[in-house]
């Protein structure tokens, strides 16, 4: 058991150059191990590292002493302790995140994503699986297929892993019984068929005893297949390439050391490219010919998927980060409305309609997700109706982006269809998504080019168009002050229009209520109307509570730089409640009115409002004067 198995020590000792040559030509395989603590996953990984000599004597010494102190294997080595990472989880005896491990055999270098099996499972496993070529799904031979086996298999399949190994572990505990193994394989095949998993390889093994890990086990003469390592070493990763063989390179960075050189740097995510070939730049659609493929090691004749290169073109064409250079004859689609599978990864549930930042390749856009069409139960795979997505849930949703993006279906090319969503306020990565297809309505609605521009509208009115966005609690005085400001601007000969919260809810937004979701949609529509009116050259005043920073942020980004003026009508809750002009606070306090801002729904104060007026020490008239004076200065 102490013999290092994978590394040819003789070769290293006798001819290091031959060994280095062999090592240099190794390929790489990344795989994920799925299973819970009880399946012996950490023990298995610990053994792979141990057998491949990735453990050194000093580590082994601490492993031996730890095994005796906190191990679960009596006086024997507890391999699980090897892969145990952070101090907190050492105490809890569970792993809490994705850990990456490394080992090498004579043929391959391996990167193992090790994910734990508790409630954060979905998030961790999807993360680990996103970079894996293969999944090892562990099963305890005594227990057979469990709910979590189904969950692991579903998630591996969802992320598009085509190579699945069913590792039936702890065979020693069922006396290496072939019948037990065959039954598990038959059960799994039935389930895999239903899920759409075309193929898998089942291996009976024992991580603890070392059966069928590196070599064929004498304890299971009835098993004719390969050991786990033999299988991993020899499997051809047929389906790990994108279906699309067409050239794709998202532009990361424009390389411009001097006026004579202009290169586009990126990692090729599909197909290959040769100098002299014709390419198309998306989204502009312009074509050119590849001049050189530049690297520090010299120009290349050809570059293939996976390589990071810099490309120069024969023509001077506009191309920047976020553009994608593609083969001219088979470009990917461009659209702004999609159906996608979304895995929610944040404590705060998804808010349908809210604008999140979306990163897909090197493109960064703003995206809002609609209420899920359905949520997927990761255990039973049933479709469930859902209004939102909570932490660790998966759903199919429609989403729209603020500008067109270049994409392919995730199933065809994961790097052109996989994306993350980012909360604009906390900056946390809140979701991972996989695009299915573009919705037809987006393909058929084209942007109509209009000859009279927004500058033209503004010039005729001889004013700088703006949106004055009043925000504050109910009863803070927004409408009163906005009304006075409009009167003053009107008197100055300005063309204005006031959008008032209550008034808009009588018409345009009369179908909306006061849930968080409806509030977001309310503000989205107002923002879009304000944008159109600002385009038309008007000074627009909006007076809405608009309680969430994210939506005010969205409105700001719809407009041109400097056009959005956020005005915080700052009135403390006690004061607004004391005033209670419409009697709403009273109703909210009595429970008659639900979701009332400040009472049972939050108000997020602006952090950097252009103008703040404090109504506790200013009259409405003074506040209006203050705002107008300020506006003239701006």
């Amino acid at each position: 058991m102490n013999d290092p198995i994978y590394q040819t020590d003789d070769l290293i000792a006798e001819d290091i150059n031959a060994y280095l040559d062999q090592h240099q030509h190794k390929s790489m395989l990344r795989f994920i191990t799925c299973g819970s603590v009880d399946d012996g996953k950490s023990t298995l990984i610990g053994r792979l590292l141990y057998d491949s000599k990735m453990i050194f004597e000093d580590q082994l010494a601490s492993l031996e002493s730890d095994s005796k102190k906190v191990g679960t294997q009596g006086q024997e080595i507890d391999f699980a302790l090897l892969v145990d990472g952070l101090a907190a989880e050492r105490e809890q005896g569970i792993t809490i995140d994705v850990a990456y491990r490394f080992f090498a055999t004579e043929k391959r270098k391996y990167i193992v994503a090790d994910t734990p099996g508790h409630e954060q499972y979905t998030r961790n496993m999807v993360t680990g699986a996103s970079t894996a070529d293969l999944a090892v799904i562990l099963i305890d031979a005594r227990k057979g297929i469990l709910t979590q086996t189904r969950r692991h298999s579903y998630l591996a399949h969802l992320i598009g892993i085509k190579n699945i190994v069913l590792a039936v572990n702890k065979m020693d505990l069922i006396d290496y019984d072939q019948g037990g193994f065959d039954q598990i394989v038959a059960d799994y095949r039935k389930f895999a068929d239903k899920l759409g998993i075309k193929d898998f390889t089942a291996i009976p093994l024992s991580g603890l005893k070392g059966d069928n890990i590196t070599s064929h086990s004498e304890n299971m003469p009835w098993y004719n297949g390969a050991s786990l390592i033999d299988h991993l070493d020899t499997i051809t990763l047929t389906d790990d390439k994108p279906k699309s063989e067409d050239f794709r390179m998202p532009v990361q960075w424009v390389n411009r050391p001097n006026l004579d050189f202009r290169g586009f740097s990126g990692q090729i995510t599909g197909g290959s490219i040769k100098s002299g070939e014709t390419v198309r730049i998306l989204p502009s659609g312009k074509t050119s010919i590849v001049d050189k493929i530049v690297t520090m090691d010299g120009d290349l004749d050809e570059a293939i998927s996976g390589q990071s290169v810099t490309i120069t073109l024969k023509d001077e064409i506009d191309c920047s980060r976020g553009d994608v250079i593609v083969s001219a004859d088979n470009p990917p689609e461009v659209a702004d409305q999609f159906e996608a599978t979304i895995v929610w990864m944040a404590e705060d549930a998804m808010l349908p309609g809210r604008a999140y930042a979306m990163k897909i390749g090197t493109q960064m856009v703003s995206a809002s997700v609609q209420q899920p069409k359905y949520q997927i139960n990761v255990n039973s795979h049933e479709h469930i109706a859902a209004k939102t997505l909570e932490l660790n849930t998966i759903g199919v949703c429609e989403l729209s982006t603020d500008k067109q993006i270049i994409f392919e279906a995730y199933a065809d090319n994961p790097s052109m269809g996989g994306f993350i969503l980012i909360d604009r306020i906390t900056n946390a990565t809140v979701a991972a998504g996989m695009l299915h297809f573009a919705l037809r309505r987006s393909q058929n609605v084209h942007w109509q080019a209009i000859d009279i521009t927004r500058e033209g509208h503004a010039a005729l009115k001889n004013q700088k168009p703006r949106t004055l966005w009043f925000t504050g609690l109910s009863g803070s005085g927004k409408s009163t002050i906005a009304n006075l400001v409009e009167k003053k601007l009107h008197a100055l000969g300005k063309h204005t229009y006031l959008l008032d919260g209550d008034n808009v809810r009588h018409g345009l937004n009369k179908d909306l209520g006061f849930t968080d979701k409806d509030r977001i949609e309310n503000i989205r529509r107002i923002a879009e109307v304000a944008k159109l009116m600002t385009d038309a050259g008007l000074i627009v005043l909006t007076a809405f509570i608009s309680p969430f920073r994210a939506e005010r942020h969205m409105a700001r980004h719809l407009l041109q730089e400097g056009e959005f003026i956020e005005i915080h009508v700052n009135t403390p809750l006690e004061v607004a409640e004391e005033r209670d002009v419409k009697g709403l606070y009273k109703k909210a306090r009595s429970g008659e009115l639900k979701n009332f801002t400040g009472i049972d729904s939050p108000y997020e104060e602006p952090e950097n409002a252009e103008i703040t007026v404090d109504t506790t020490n200013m009259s409405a008239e003074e506040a209006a004067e203050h705002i107008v004076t300020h506006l003239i200065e701006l």
Partner: protein
Amino acid sequence: MSQLTHLQRLEAESIHILREVAAEAEKPVMLYSVGKDSAVMLHLAKKAFYPSPPPFPLMHVDTTWKFQEMYKLREKAAKDAGMELLVYQNPEAKEKAINPFDHGSLHTDMWKTEGLKQALDTYGFDTAFGGARRDEEKSRAKERVFSFRNANHRWDPKNQRPELWNLYNSRKSGSESIRVFPISNWTELDIWQYIHLENIEIVPLYLSKKRPTVMRDGMLLMVDDERFPLKEGETPEMRSIRFRTLGCYPLTGAVESEATTLPEVIQEMLLTTTSERQGRAIDHDQAASMEKKKQEGYF
């Protein structure tokens, strides 16, 4: 060329990460320790932006106690890469003459941990590349490629972002900063092999040579300059030694070795049975000490 080798895949991944930061960060910097991992990281940066020089400076958080040969290579490497070299020394540590002989772990705390925080704050860097690898140590295995630090440069292992595919989220609030580890997925063997293949210049101390040494507390230390206080009965002895890892010379243990070429070094490494970090005094303090140091802001 039908399939990339593991080194080609690692190289392409690292270059991708370097370029993402160059494109998205406001003020990036590359932390450069002059060691072999830094050498590989710097080489990858040169490749990532060729023919431009890397669009960020190199910064060495210096303790004044590095090996002399490291200081020599530091200047040359920056010049060869066409990059600005910033050297930062914690003025308080300097004033108090903090040194590894008299001050124990305070030396690392003040020169390195504090020095790094001060350096980043002084220059206002929002993103710093570091040459850490996941295979170095248990607590590193879970480290993200993009690792977030709060305004006090502290690392919260429970509050790190999930990293999917090759999509890195580099957005952050004003006071946060990011450490980015482009060679996260490289192993020690990968590093050596790549240095060998790409002919990357490294500090000669990695190769064996007769050097003046003393044996102290089980560690073989090199007497690198006259600041080394010899204890009673100690006389420097010429031994054929090399280093597997380089830091402050009074804290870095050497190994006796006859390996004078890179393949020989790799050969010894593969046949040896002690892990790389054992030569560093810093890790032996307490169980999971690296994790504690990271939470406090050590790289």
